[in-house]
């Protein structure tokens, strides 16, 4: 392990200021030192490459520039499409058409501008501008490289050589481009969009009443309303935010710990020496992981339901006189019972998973540790607490953290079992709602996107803080290369 050859390291880490300074000096060097083609490339893409005889590359850069500029300037100016500079201007949400004209084609009233699309197109355009400057930089770089090659008495690289380099030295570009494009469009852009919604008055329900798609920016008002209780969902946030936040934490801690230690105990039981049928037991527990959660959790929900077998059994035995609302599905049901039940049922979901994970780790504990302990006359319990547990906990700390974060965002266990109930009249957030299920209700059911976005940002802040603190300290981050 120790003698394993290391990969050459990442480029030396630099501070942000140094990065900026470096960028400027590169820019200056290329502009002053470059050939006439390189200088012209700052304005017209690809000229440098064309002058060096790299025709395909030059035309590629040129057409990219022409395409982006057409979208950015020509189309909005001539065809009046809502892209390009118009999309940037629309980002202010000021220049809107109110609508309300009768459209003879659809037989409906037109609704005029759509502010959510204005924001979306605005961010797409900003992304496009960033891409434009990335290509701009790439084009100058490529031209300057050809300059240097020529000065050194070599030929500038041909298109074929560039392509080949894409499969070798620059292989990472080829491999990462699909993910970068896809993730920018479908992950990063939507996330930025939703963050920005937190600073608007976007509430679909209010807007439907007014037959409009218009809303505006309102700064930090939504965040302030968490504390003051103003706005459309202000009451809800003001009265329910802290209880939901508190329960989310209690849930995450209890759900993580119960599943974690339950899983370790189950793994110890299954891996006990001399036990027969290990495989069968293991398979039974894997079975519960393999069955989709919406099936198994809905089954549990119905078993415990008002007319389900358990309540009927208890009624027939005469232990109770009316059905128990285990899961708080009706408003009057006990909140505490529902909370206990979701944690218990969540153990059913989570324990097999931890069992699988720790099984492998348990086998890796050096046996001489146990032998030494046995010679010293340690009892089984003592060995468990002094050897097994510390070892497993040490190895699985990263998992413990990620499962804690996962439990904060655990949607299925709550939504499928209790649906957040028991409900509070007048509020969306019920007794067992977590931040995520509340976020779902507020946005999807209620259409109050701005409030949902605020809840989402709070959830992010909590999970990010926990993760970053622990991750930064972890060995996996700091000694990534040494542990290979």
């Amino acid at each position, binding site marked *: 392990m120790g003698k*394993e*050859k290391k*990969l050459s390291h*990442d*480029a030396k880490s630099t501070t942000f200021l140094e990065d900026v300074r470096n960028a400027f000096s590169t820019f200056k060097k290329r502009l002053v030192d470059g050939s006439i083609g390189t200088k012209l490339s700052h304005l017209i893409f690809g000229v440098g490459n064309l002058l060096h005889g790299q025709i395909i590359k030059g035309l590629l850069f040129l057409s990219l520039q022409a395409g982006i500029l057409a979208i950015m300037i020509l189309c909005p100016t001539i065809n009046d499409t809502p892209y390009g500079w118009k999309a940037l201007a629309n980002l202010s949400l000021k220049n809107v058409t109110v609508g309300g004209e009768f459209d003879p084609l659809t037989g409906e009233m037109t609704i005029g501008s759509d502010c*959510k*699309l204005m924001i*979306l197109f605005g961010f797409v355009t900003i992304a496009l501008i960033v891409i434009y400057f990335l290509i701009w930089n790439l084009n100058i770089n490529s031209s300057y490289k050809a300059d240097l090659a020529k000065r050194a008495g070599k030929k500038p690289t041909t298109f074929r050589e560039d392509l080949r380099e894409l*499969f*070798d030295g620059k292989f*990472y570009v*080829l*491999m*990462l481009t*699909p*993910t970068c494009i*896809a*993730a920018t469009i*479908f*992950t990063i852009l*939507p*996330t930025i969009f*939703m963050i920005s919604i937190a600073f608007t008055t976007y509430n679909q329900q209010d807007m439907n009443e007014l037959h409009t798609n218009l809303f505006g920016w309102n700064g930090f008002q939504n965040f302030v309303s968490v504390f003051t209780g103003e706005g459309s969902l202000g009451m809800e946030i003001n009265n329910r935010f802290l209880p939901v936040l508190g329960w989310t934490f209690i849930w995450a801690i209890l759900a993580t710990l119960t599943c974690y230690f339950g899983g370790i105990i189950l793994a110890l*039981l*299954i891996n*006990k020496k001399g*036990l027969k049928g290990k495989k069968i*037991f293991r398979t*039974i*527990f894997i*079975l*519960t992981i*393999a069955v*989709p959660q*919406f*099936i*198994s959790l809905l*089954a549990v929900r119905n*078993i415990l339901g008002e*007319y*389900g077998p358990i309540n009927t059994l208890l009624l027939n035995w005469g232990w109770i006189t009316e059905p128990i609302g285990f899961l708080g599905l009706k408003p009057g049901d006990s909140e505490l019972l529902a909370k206990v039940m979701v944690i218990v049922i969540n153990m*059913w979901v989570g324990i097999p*998973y931890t069992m*699988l*994970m720790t099984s492998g*780790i348990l086998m890796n504990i050096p046996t001489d540790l146990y032998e030494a302990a046995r010679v010293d006359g340690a009892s089984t319990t003592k060995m468990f607490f002094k050897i097994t547990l510390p070892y497993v906990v040490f190895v*699985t700390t*990263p*998992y413990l953290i990620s499962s804690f974060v996962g439990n904060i965002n655990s949607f299925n266990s709550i*939504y499928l079992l209790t649906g957040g109930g028991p409900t509070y009249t007048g509020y969306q957030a019920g007794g067992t709602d977590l931040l*995520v299920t509340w*976020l779902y209700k507020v946005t*999807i059911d209620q259409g109050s*996107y701005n409030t*949902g976005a605020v809840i*989402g940002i709070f959830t*992010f802040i909590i999970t*990010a803080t926990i993760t970053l603190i622990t991750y930064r300290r972890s060995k*996996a981050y700091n000694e990534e290369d040494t542990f*290979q």
Partner: protein
Amino acid sequence: MKDNVKVKKFKSQTANRRIGLGVTYTMLIVGGIVWLIPLIWIFLSAFRCEYQDGTFIGRVTSNFFPNAVGFENFRLLFTSTYYGVEGAFLKWMGNTLLIAAIDCVISTLLVLSVAYCMSKLRFKLRRAFMNMSMIIGLFPGFMSMIAIYFLLKSIGLTGNPAHPEYSVIGLIFAYSAGAGLGFQVAKGFFDVIPNALVESAKLDGCSNSKIFWRIILPLSKPIIIYQALMSFTGPWMDFIFAKVIIGADNAQYWTVSVGLYSMLFGTHPDTNLFTQFAAGCVIVAIPIVSLFMFLQKYYVEGVTAGAVKG
């Protein structure tokens, strides 16, 4: 005398061990039963075939074991019209299979390529990419879900009255596009492959692309299977994303989980659908569970790798 004590001690030790094993067996058997009860109940409900005054009862009943069994639920499931869609269940199964198969290929390729870059190549923005993907992963998925819906709608890939079938493409995009950011488990696996292997191949004049296809991938069967299994089963298990992206009024293009979920909580006029829901669950669970059982070894390997690497 001394020997006698020793023998006694030995005897008590074996007795203790036996008791210990007995307790373990009891706990495991009780645990196993507890863990299986909900699944057995759903399975039994799927075959329940009870009539009351000549009408079929499909709702939840109070008895755990059915009074009569038969295949009526399955017949109804495959022939009924749900949400105005004829033969809806088969269509849902077909949609899900298509989506899962395409998602499986795209996601696995994306994950493997990103994981390889992060593990075996060194370049300028590597750390930045890793940190970025971690931060993005911390935002609740539901937050971006709505925005993804708007985005797909604005390019006609969902909620498109002229081409409602495009929403299936939209859903495939939504499932697989971000997959590359979930490279951590695969990276953990690649990290264990000795770097010396890569270096010596380089000395022999292998390009990075050749190293990936000819050396790394053939060594990575477990992680490829794990990733493929995860991305293939994902669409069968998710019901929220699919519902939001495809839309509540587009029942023909739902995935099977959305359909089944809606049979219990939807606006369907008939509340007698529980046993048909159970039958559907059995049909969905059988292929997924057999896949898991068949590929159990690789699944466990992936999970264990994920535990240590986080």
